[in-house]
């Protein structure tokens, strides 16, 4: 059963955070096809948030075709979002950890690493756009 978390000072609205966490869980394999998502009441009770926030998140996921709500029973996972198989994440995470260790050893601070990642993302996106 997956646990939700809400980042307190995030600019991302709560319902989007919840939806994203479900997608992440589907990508990494924590949630699989046929699993039941936590009920609205369970989420509301553990996070002390408004029920509409949860409903909105689940509705968005339903629109994307990732989950399906069954009246009176719950909300169930239909399929994984398009993306790499679960194992890929683990492999990539490991190589990332190795690279970060190298960067730190070379003297980069975490803030430098973060801005390097961000600028590389941006430039590679524009490269792909022009390619």
């Amino acid at each position: 059963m997956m646990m939700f978390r809400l980042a307190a000072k995030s600019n991302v609205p709560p319902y989007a955070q919840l939806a994203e966490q479900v997608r992440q869980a589907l990508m990494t394999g924590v949630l699989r096809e046929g699993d039941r998502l936590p009920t609205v009441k369970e989420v509301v009770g553990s996070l002390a948030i408004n029920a509409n926030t949860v409903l909105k998140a689940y509705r968005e996921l339903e629109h994307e075709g990732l989950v399906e709500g069954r009246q009176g029973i719950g909300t169930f996972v239909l399929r994984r979002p398009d993306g790499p198989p679960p194992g890929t994440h683990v492999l990539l995470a490991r190589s990332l950890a190795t690279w970060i260790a190298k960067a730190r050893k070379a003297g980069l601070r975490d803030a430098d690493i973060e801005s390097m990642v961000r600028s590389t993302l941006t430039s590679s996106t524009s490269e792909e756009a022009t390619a």
Partner: protein
Amino acid sequence: MSAALATYGLGRRFGSKWAVQDCTLSIPEGRVCGLVGANGAGKTTLLRMLAGLSTPTTGDLEVCGRRPCDDVAFLSDVGFLAQEIPLHKRWNAEDHLRFGAAMNPRWDDDVARERLTALQIPLQQPIRTLSGGQRAQVALALCLGKRPRALLLDEPVAALDPLARREFLSSLATAVADGDLTVVLSSHLVTDLERICDYLVVVAASRTMLAADIDDVLASHRLLTSARRDASVIERDHVVLQRETTQRQTDLWVRLNGPVHDPAWQVNELSLEDIVLAYLGSQHPLEQKQQLGTVAS
């Protein structure tokens, strides 16, 4: 969607001082409405009038379709939790449940009892030996066992530690998720409210500054920043709540009436807390969009 709570030009005066003035609100059914404002802004007075504990000086109001009055039909629909969390100190929680059963025709003992047992609150111990958080939960259980359609809470978590606060709001959130309940809770902290509320009312100095769905509030308020320039076009097209001008820069807190066309203005989102602060410091009470009408009795 019909309004669970509605006020029309509501006002309450104590001697020569107005605690609430010109309050016109319409809170839809099923909302969790946060009532935010500084101490002394009129939150408690407004809630007490909605609960029928205080008589308005001017204006009218309607709760669950009825004007507040001293009879069973109104009283059983509306629950109220006062700021001091009044309970009988020498009684225990069990006594309070029996009290609830004796005083309310629609009493649902299972609902109240299950809450307390789930939270592991001892039912046989005198209330005065329980912690603040536990007392708040007993009082909440008492309110919910009554099965009201509207629940009014006056600063229910102000005196609680962070854990008790989270547990209380959790309990409240699950109660609302069960359906059929409209909640108004007041606080002087926005952070308490923004997780659990989907509707917001801001009061300052006895006046209502804002009353709207939180999603709409977040979508319609922006911070406009630019190198120092003339703001008259913005002021004409939108509502400027606050401004800050330095030699080099102009900042405007704005409620937008449409898109901003001038590219010289950088448009930034605002947190709910920043929006509330802007209203608390502004001079624009909520415009009276509704006519003052009489309430069907």
